């Protein structure tokens, strides 16, 4: 395999890995939008909670399994408490109130984390046995840990598909999204259903956060930067559609990565080196927003509208 093709494959893997992380966040966000009609800006805070809980458990106990459990449990529990204490009061209010309240939650969580753990970033190591790289194709070495993230993300996608399309709970979730009053009239405890869905979304955000911990630095505010991309994913995929979230996330991840990797090089062939690099970096960072604009031009409700 030529080096150019090997590099392209590696960059595609990088794109899929970023996409899968975005999917874990976007799935929860889009479910909460689609079913409860709530804009939850604090979704990134749940990602941060998962990352912090796992990082602290990993450094105190040294066990990656305990860290996994702690991250998932902390994020899901925080999500359900937030739903119970704050969001439950907001379903009937308009979006501005929801945005204000969940924005307040961001400030609350960020400052809370500063009080509890300080501003210094926390560090977690990649668990033993997942360090290093494997040869996925001739000439392409790829870090094991990133492969694991891809695998987990795809497994979650499959699991969510089965849960939503094939299970009884999933049926209620789908019905709750489209015919809320009817579901309530049939005697289903919609409030409990909402809490569960919110908890599931939080759990997935926590999973994304705890898996990102060993790659990025775990720090206050880590959720906000990725949340903006997540919003882009949700809009591209179609609000409320988990399938849309998966395709949107992988699309955004791959496009973002490939633009970053190749645009400066292409520009360098037509202009001077450092100008090309600076301009290329600028263009690449605009890329996903351009993509969003293009998708919306062609399909104003996103790729997979939930209530078509």
């Amino acid at each position, binding site marked *: 395999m030529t080096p150019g093709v090997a590099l392209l494959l590696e960059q595609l893997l*990088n794109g899929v890995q970023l996409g899968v992380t975005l999917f874990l966040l976007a799935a929860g966000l889009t479910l909460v939008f689609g079913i409860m009609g709530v804009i939850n800006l604090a979704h990134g805070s749940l990602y941060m909670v998962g990352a912090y809980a796992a990082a602290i458990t990993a450094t105190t106990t040294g066990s990656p399994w305990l860290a996994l459990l702690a991250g998932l449990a902390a994020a899901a529990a925080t999500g359900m408490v937030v739903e119970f204490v704050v969001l439950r009061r907001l379903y009937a209010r308009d979006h501005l109130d929801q945005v204000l309240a969940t924005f307040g939650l961001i400030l609350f969580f960020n400052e809370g984390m500063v009080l509890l753990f300080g501003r210094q970033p926390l*560090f977690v190591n990649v668990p033993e046995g997942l360090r290093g*790289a494997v040869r996925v194709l001739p000439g392409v*070495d790829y870090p094991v840990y990133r492969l694991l993230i891809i695998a987990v993300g795809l497994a979650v996608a499959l699991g969510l598909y089965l849960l939503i399309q094939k299970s009884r709970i999933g049926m209620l979730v789908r019905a709750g999204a489209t015919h809320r009053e009817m579901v309530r009239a049939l005697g289903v405890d919609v409030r409990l259903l909402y809490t569960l869905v919110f908890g599931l979304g939080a759990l997935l955000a926590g999973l994304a956060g705890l898996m990102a911990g060993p790659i990025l630095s775990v720090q206050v*505010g880590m959720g906000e930067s990725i949340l903006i991309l997540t919003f882009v994913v949700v*809009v591209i995929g179609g609000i409320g559609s988990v399938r849309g979230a998966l395709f949107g996330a992988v699309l955004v991840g791959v496009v973002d990565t490939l633009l970053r*990797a190749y645009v400066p090089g292409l520009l360098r062939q037509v202009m001077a080196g450092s100008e090309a690099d600076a301009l290329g970096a600028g263009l690449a960072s605009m890329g996903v927003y351009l993509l969003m604009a293009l998708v919306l031009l062609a399909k104003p409700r996103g790729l997979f509208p939930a*209530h078509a």
Partner: protein
Amino acid sequence: MTINRRGLLASGAALGLAPLAASPLSRPAIAQGAPLKIGMITTLSGAGSYLGQDIRDAFQLAIDMEGGKLGGAPVQLLVEDDGLRPGQGKQVAERFMKNERIRLLTGIVFSNVLGAVAPDVLDAGGIYVSPNASPSNLAGKECNKNFWSIAWQNDSLHESAGQLATNLGQKRMFILAPNYQAGRDALTGFKRLYKGQLAGEVYTRLDQTDFAAEMAQIRAAAPDGVYQFHPGGLGIAFLRQYIQAGLMANLPMTLAAPSMDATTLAAVGDAAVGVNLTSHWNTDFPNEASKRFVAAFQQKFNRLPTFYAQQSFDAALAIGAALKGTGGKVDDTEAFYRAMKPANFESTRGKFAFGSNNHPVQDWWALKVENVAGKPALVTKDRVLTNHGDAYSSQCHF
């Protein structure tokens, strides 16, 4: 109730405004006779927050060590977060100057924030003493009598690293920095004294935390060394991913000080052993002022001071020396200039002087990450550059 896309996008936009709403309301001005107020705008949230924390803590430490005074004048430090957003920094500066009537400002970590704030402060007749960011424009054509750089001009950090890479015999390097003023200054500075070839030159995003695409590019370019400038949390993420990609073992890294501070080192651990970098100061400097500072900082905050802390401490000392000369006043900027220029303070870096453009003229040292008593530490080696100023002073005419 359904959610439309417009509402969703609007809420995404609201996210961007987040820290604006987070700033506390302005406080009323205090009557005359009160201590001299110094306004500190620094980054206390997001990926650069520990840098701002060190700048804030070290400045306050200098005030505390003199019993609430600097140069014999009672001072009060007001601190606000810029959230690494130029617009927010500008607003804080305006509030400081209008509502609090502050004339002396300091604290900014990032050059893009400084670029928005410094012109406002200087145009309004204020004084800005920079403990960190010093972009090229403020050292050259747009230099100002009332702008003081205590740390270094941005380029010099990287010029010294370029010199070190040349000294180490690196022939074909891959260089990376974020795409903002200081990042572009970094690569320009590095190339100025680096004599080898470039295997590649990449600008990353200032809000980027995943560098997988860059790691693949580095590997594909097959350089014999890597130079990168990523301050704060970015640098930690970059180094960890560099190690995870298995590059650290084969591709030596040469760095400038901000990419390997005490906090970064603690994060990266043993894998960083062997990394070469340059700095104007290090915790093991043998002079008395430095020893006193490191001991006091460690005792109070229970962590090693970073370069940022040292720069902020020196900024406080330099301001102290100026206040001593003016009798604690900052209203007469001409008098402040005359008192500040001789740099009559005991710098933690041993020797320190201001060049014609109010930027430092100082020595640069090679440091190496080594195992000291079982823990990786920054150890000072040879001098790389002597009495090094910056490339822009000749363009500066007050």
